[in-house]
């Protein structure tokens, strides 16, 4: 396995889930083509709905790799969604300066403002952690608590509904037979992978996570790297927030992205990235996000109440984490070697 050993356990779990479906629910694998020319089926559902967690987990992986954590992404999603929605519902004469392209201009401004605001939130987190030296969990707690208040401030406390063909497309459209969300997630994921693995950036992130002081002495702008990863995480949250609010065609400041920060962290940790920082596996986070969504989709396919899905999710997460924990593995092998007569662990 070599460089892919961290993928072993999450892939085994994913394989077992799919195997279960293959035996007990073969219809799970049916993928059909609609008259409109796009695919649908449980597997496509997984691709579609896991994309927001994939995006969040991409940013989260980088943050966790520097030894931090960003628990504000859910709130940042709400802010981004609120910003985009409040721009898109503005009367079109506001955008009259764009001439005939007022609709396109409104859409472009909505997306730009949402992403800019989300990135600003990330920069703010970076300021608190890298600039002021506050521990990350606490620093991002501030925005997590205040963020939904800010989102409500933007929407004026109401749920803004919209129906704009451009903005609707982000969360509901299809491109080359696949959901557009999947394409967004894939583009973002591949970009980040290339940026971190084909340039020195990834190495910088890992070295800061390993030992911030040492990497500073080695000439790495440690603080700058931290600012950057939080900004990237904010940007990712902005993209995910746009997707979610576009999908349901409204901006709900209270519930958009609620608990998604937890899903993003879980996906990252399942994928083998240690919470202590220093090493990161973007491919692992991808598998983790898909695994979480597979569990959920499987439950829906088996008529389970969506709220109860939390229980198996929690159990799977804890089991995968246990299997990845060195302590647990050494204790387990110790117990086995004691039982086996004269056996060597």
């Amino acid at each position, binding site marked *: 396995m070599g460089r892919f050993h961290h993928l072993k356990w999450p892939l085994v779990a994913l394989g077992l889930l799919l195997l279960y479906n293959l035996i007990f629910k073969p219809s799970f694998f049916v993928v059909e083509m609609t008259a409109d020319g796009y695919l649908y089926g449980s597997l496509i559902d997984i691709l579609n709905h896991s994309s927001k967690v994939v995006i969040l987990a991409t940013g989260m992986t980088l943050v966790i790799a520097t030894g931090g*954590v960003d628990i504000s992404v859910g709130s940042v999603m709400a802010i981004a969604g609120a910003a985009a929605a409040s721009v898109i519902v503005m009367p079109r004469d506001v955008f009259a300066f764009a001439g005939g392209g007022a609709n396109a201009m409104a859409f472009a401004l909505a997306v730009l403002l949402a992403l800019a605001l989300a990135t600003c939130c990330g920069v703010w987190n970076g300021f608190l952690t890298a600039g*002021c*030296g*506050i*521990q990350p*969990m*606490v*620093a991002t*707690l*501030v*925005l*997590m*608590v*205040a*963020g*939904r*208040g*800010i989102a*409500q*401030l933007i929407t004026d*406390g109401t749920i803004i509904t919209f129906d704009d063909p451009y903005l609707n497309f982000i969360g509901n459209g299809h491109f080359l037979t696949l959901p557009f969300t999947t394409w967004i997630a894939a583009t973002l994921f591949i970009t980040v992978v290339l940026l971190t693995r084909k340039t020195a950036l990834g190495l910088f992130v890992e070295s800061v996570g390993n030992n911030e002081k040492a990497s500073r002495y080695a000439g790495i702008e440690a603080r700058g790297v931290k600012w950057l990863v939080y900004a990237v995480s904010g940007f990712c949250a902005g993209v995910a927030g746009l997707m979610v609010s576009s999908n349901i065609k409204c901006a709900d*400041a209270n519930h958009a992205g*609620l608990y998604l920060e*937890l899903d993003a*962290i*879980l996906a990252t*940790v399942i994928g083998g990235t240690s*919470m202590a920082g220093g090493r990161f596996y973007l491919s692992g986070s991808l598998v983790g996000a898909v695994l979480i969504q597979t569990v959920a989709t499987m439950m829906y396919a088996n008529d389970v*109440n969506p*709220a*109860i*899905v*939390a*229980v*198996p*999710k*929690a*159990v799977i*997460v*804890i089991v995968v*984490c*246990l299997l990845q*924990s*060195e*302590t*647990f593995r050494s*204790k387990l092998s110790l117990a086995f070697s004691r039982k086996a007569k004269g056996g060597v662990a």
Partner: protein
Amino acid sequence: MKKPHIPVRFVPIGATIFVFLLAYAIGIANFRNFGSLRVFLNLLHDNAYLGVAAIGAMVVILSGGIDLSVGSVIAFTGMLIAKMIDCGVNACWAILLAIVLGALFGMLQGVLISTFELPPFLVTLGGMFFARGCSYIVNEEAMGILNNPVFNFIENKLEIPIGSRGLTLEFIDILYLVLLIIAIVFTQRTHAGRCIYAVGENEQAATLMGIPVRRTKIMVYTIAGFCSAVAGIVFTIYLKSGNPLSCVGLEMDAIAATVIGGTLLTGGVGYMIGSFFGVLVLGLIQVLIMFQGNINSWWTRIIVGALVLVFIFMQNLITKISKKSRA
């Protein structure tokens, strides 16, 4: 003349009390009757469940950990009690079972955290999902508790009259205050309580000193689970119903109350009485906004966020100063 010397460790708690008094003074200056006993008793009554939850959160944070499962355990406790009463079980047994389950749940989290060295953040995150899902398994919709003899007895008989205007200190308020006093004595005056501080300040040093770190951690999470369950009972008595959706995000309120109460989130520093004032400050902000009448409720979250930020900055500063004076 000698300058009065205030130890730097008393500054955060002093600031908490200052913020509390300031908020109260603003209220009294602007609104008639804000200073009345009734407003204060309501403040206590409306936030008793948060207070109990904050005791658990505070103990965990003192040990350097974190517990995110609080809100879900409260919801689960409420649902369990409501469902058992619905099935004809005596409410006393339902309450007892809920407490035992809560403590066991916390203990399991503690074992996972201390024995297998999993990050507390992650384990209690799993616990949060688990308990929330379980409360839906109990019943998918909210359940009321109507005309239950035990609940009626608690509501009508177990109260202390205060003053002449028929004001009373209700059972859940008394329960919170008693638990708070026990928690203060426990953290300040007992061996186990001091061990929590030692583990939170520096785990390695605590191990070298011969403090049972593992046992302390398991105990801490058991206490947290117990407190969450009791908070759930308080909440159930307060609302006389169970709702699988109740208290979403309450863990963050409990953590915010702890931070505003002057406790360092890295562990080892803080006073239990601070959580009391932290909870009251959170409650006061809501009451102030309610009295004002024309401010939107979402300002609550922004103000709470800003307050948390201020306290974090202050503590960072204090940590730096005390490090300098030690060096």
